[in-house]
């Protein structure tokens, strides 16, 4: 996208070549140049980036420090140790917490994506009475945020007998109009002819949805999948409220209870925090494009 702007800029300026004394000409292609301006901005950017990333780096490095060094002045651990990690994984069932988080997040991501994309397909591509009404009602639920309906939602889940179970962690997390809304915006952009042809060929609606629509939006679905996984991995209030069984603790709840029990052992808490953060950072590292895409599209499509 940047290079696109760059080429456009270049062509724009050549048009007025004669009228003005030549402004510094930028060559098309790689435009990363060390001019005075770009160097200044680079320094500014690097400083802000370092300040931003410092807490993360400090946490990770501190997790390798001993209890005695944890508040020491040196950034790097004076005596490297893995003892904190050994403790976190042997004395506390952190592996179990990780598994719970992974299981719940993966399950929710896959099923939610399927359900939302189905609903979005109906709302965008199928004609039926009351379509707009259904959509507006679903859309309005976006205003309802979890902590506000936490109590009644808790009651509903209790009535359904899903308290303190994987079902309770998974099922209510599946439903959010956000995905429906986003996908509908995409599906609506397709031309009608696509389905007309498929219908004439005798394909049913499921076939059209599964074989025509879904493959076209694979990148969007991938972006949304990463986003869902991340959101569920990081969710805290809901699992905290509906589970009490230690075996059902997800990472965020596990680390918070750990923190309450071991408030004084800062080195363990730092290691545990790092453990909880690493999957999200890895996800970010590998799927950065998908994450930023999902953010962009959530606001602009």
């Amino acid at each position, binding site marked *: 996208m940047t290079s696109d702007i760059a080429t456009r800029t270049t062509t724009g300026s050549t048009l007025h070549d004669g009228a003005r004394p030549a402004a510094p000409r930028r060559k098309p292609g790689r435009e990363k140049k060390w001019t005075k301006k770009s160097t200044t901005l*680079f320094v500014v950017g690097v400083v802000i980036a370092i300040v931003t990333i410092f807490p993360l780096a400090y946490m990770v490095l501190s997790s390798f420090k001993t209890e005695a060094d944890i508040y020491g002045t040196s950034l790097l651990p004076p005596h490297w140790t893995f003892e904190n990690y050994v403790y976190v994984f042997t004395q506390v069932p952190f592996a179990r917490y990780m598994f719970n988080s992974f299981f719940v997040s993966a399950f929710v991501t896959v099923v939610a994506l399927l359900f939302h994309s189905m609903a979005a397909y109906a709302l965008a591509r199928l004609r039926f009475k009351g379509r707009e009404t259904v959509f507006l009602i679903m859309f309005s639920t976006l205003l309802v945020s979890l902590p506000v309906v936490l109590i009644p939602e808790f009651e*509903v889940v209790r009535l359904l007998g899903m308290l303190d179970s994987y079902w309770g962690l998974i099922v209510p997390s599946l439903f959010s109009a956000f995905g429906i809304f986003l996908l509908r915006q995409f599906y609506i952009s397709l031309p009608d002819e696509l389905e007309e042809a498929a219908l004439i060929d005798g394909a049913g609606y499921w076939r059209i949805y599964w074989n025509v629509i879904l493959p076209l939006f694979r990148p969007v679905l991938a972006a949304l999948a990463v986003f869902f996984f991340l959101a569920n991995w990081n969710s805290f209030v809901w699992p905290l409220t509906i589970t009490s069984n230690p075996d059902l603790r997800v990472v965020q709840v596990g680390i918070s209870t750990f923190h309450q029990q071991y408030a004084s052992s800062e080195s363990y*808490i730092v290691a545990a925090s790092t453990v909880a953060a690493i999957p999200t950072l890895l996800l970010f590292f590998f799927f950065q494009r998908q994450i930023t895409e999902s953010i962009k599209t959530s606001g602009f499509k």
Partner: protein
Amino acid sequence: MTATVRAGTIETNGSRRSATDSSKERRRSARARREGLAALLFLLPDSLGLLIFVFIPMVIAIVLGFFRLDGFGNISFVGFGNYIRMAQDPQFLQSAGITALYLVILVPAIFVVGLLLALLVQQRIPFIGVIRSALFAPYVISLVVVGLMWQFMLADKVGVVNQFLSAFGVHGISWLGDPHYTLGTVVVISIWFQMGYYMIIFLSGLQDIPAELYESARIDGAGAWQRFWNITWPMLRPTSLFVFVTATIAVITGGFDLIYILTGGGPAGTTSLLIFYIYQQAFLYGEYGYAAAIGSVLVLVLLIWSAFMFRITKGGRIDDE
């Protein structure tokens, strides 16, 4: 998940209705039933789920707001009692005030920081991709970890922040313990955490502005400042409104995890945002009815706010062009 939806890019009538010649009409009525049935099946899982886990709880919350529940299973109808109680509850009023203050500081701060970062990372700078990633990274960390991490860094006397500051002659500030500093600390951490998200949103808005506009302005001799005020700022209006609306909603409804871990609403209730107060009332004091009433007010405020923004943005679309 926060309601990150641009208030109403809703297209009420899709382009599908445009083609209405008679043969198509007849074919349509023939398969209307089938299509309707298919739609029902496609919509079934999500509508059922949203109904049970969002809509019904919503209705229960409103109803519950008119009752008093004492935690021992006794329920009594109190009418507007909970709402009257709200008006007389100093802790609620303090909490509402703090939420308002938090909102008034944080939303503009997020806006300005997000925009400035977007303007920076939009530039042609070497290694800008790496810089951009670093600025965005905090956003993927859970608020629980964010809270623990900052608690570690902000520890009285021994924390890295205070050790760093003491080199400049500033000693022993209790960032999370001194009522003068706590809300400010929470605001700064919130900015740090969210700025990458808004940077991406703004960046995306900036990239939609045609480069030709800048080029011709440059030719006309407009300086960087003039180009910003006369091109960037007006062209960015839809993005700005989007950020303003979503940030407001996110700030009011979010932040619970952070407060829970970082301060627990203290000291002296200085960080007890409404969302946290609701939780406290319900799950610490068993005041379900009262908590539900506060929640209802919050949703009502959000609803009015969103409707208002929806109105003035004409459904999220501003047709400047």
